[in-house]
């Protein structure tokens, strides 16, 4: 392992710790939010920053210790492309199965049938 200058060590470790903290918060949210739809919010959002922090750390580490490196950015691109799609599919499945929602969820649909699979 190469020795990093101390500013880079600080920067890399704080980026990784911040990333890990957000990943942890996302997982806690997955466990403790009240219903399916609310649980979906935690992993789709907090993990983007969690992974982002770790990736930035990796970019800084490899750019300082070896040659300039950017291909970690590909992970971010794929994450941004796939996270909304998987969230959308899960939300859609939850909606059509009419999973139990917490009581204070307000349903503001004017024509709920417009969103269901059933034939009229």
């Amino acid at each position: 392992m190469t020795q990093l200058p101390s500013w880079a060590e600080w920067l890399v470790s704080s980026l990784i710790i911040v990333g890990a903290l957000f990943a942890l918060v996302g997982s806690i949210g997955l466990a403790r939010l009240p219903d399916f739809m609310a649980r979906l919010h935690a992993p789709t959002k907090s993990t983007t920053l969690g992974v982002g922090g770790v990736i930035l750390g990796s970019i800084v580490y490899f750019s300082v210790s070896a040659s300039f490196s950017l291909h970690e950015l590909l992970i971010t691109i794929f994450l941004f492309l796939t996270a909304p799609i998987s969230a959308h599919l899960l939300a859609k499945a939850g909606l059509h199965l009419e999973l139990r929602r917490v009581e204070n969820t307000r349903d503001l649909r004017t024509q709920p049938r417009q969103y269901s699979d059933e034939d009229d």
Partner: protein
Amino acid sequence: MLNKVLPAPFLSLFLLAFWLLLQNTISAGLVILGVILAILIPLYTNRGRDFPATIHRPLKVVEYFVLLLIDILISNLNIAAIILMPSRKIKPALIEYPLDIVGEVPITVLASTISLTPGTITAEIRRDGRALLIHALNVHDPDKLIQSIKQRYEMRLKEIFKC
């Protein structure tokens, strides 16, 4: 003429950048090979593109992307705060969001944007394709949320895609 060789200039640009990121080095040979691939792949796959979309304002795309990044950052902090406070305080809602824009690609981009930003997830599109169903994690005033999405994202998309 240019349209024949480059049917999708932004796809080509994306492919070239993607290729160079994958290689993780830049040399003349790699750039030339990348340019050849970036021209050939869109030419070959153009028949399969079902939903053509033209970007009219490339600079606005950059602005949109930066705005989105900042909002994702803020949304992460918001969600973290909601998760760490007692859960019975949250006020979730299913909101109908009327669409102003038309076309598959712009609507898809808007839906993905909504899923990535503060406390909202797109769940479904209405059968006639003129409204999105949004699940919001913690919202006090649904109309204000709809207005803010319209002004922040939909107006910009409308300018970018001219739809």
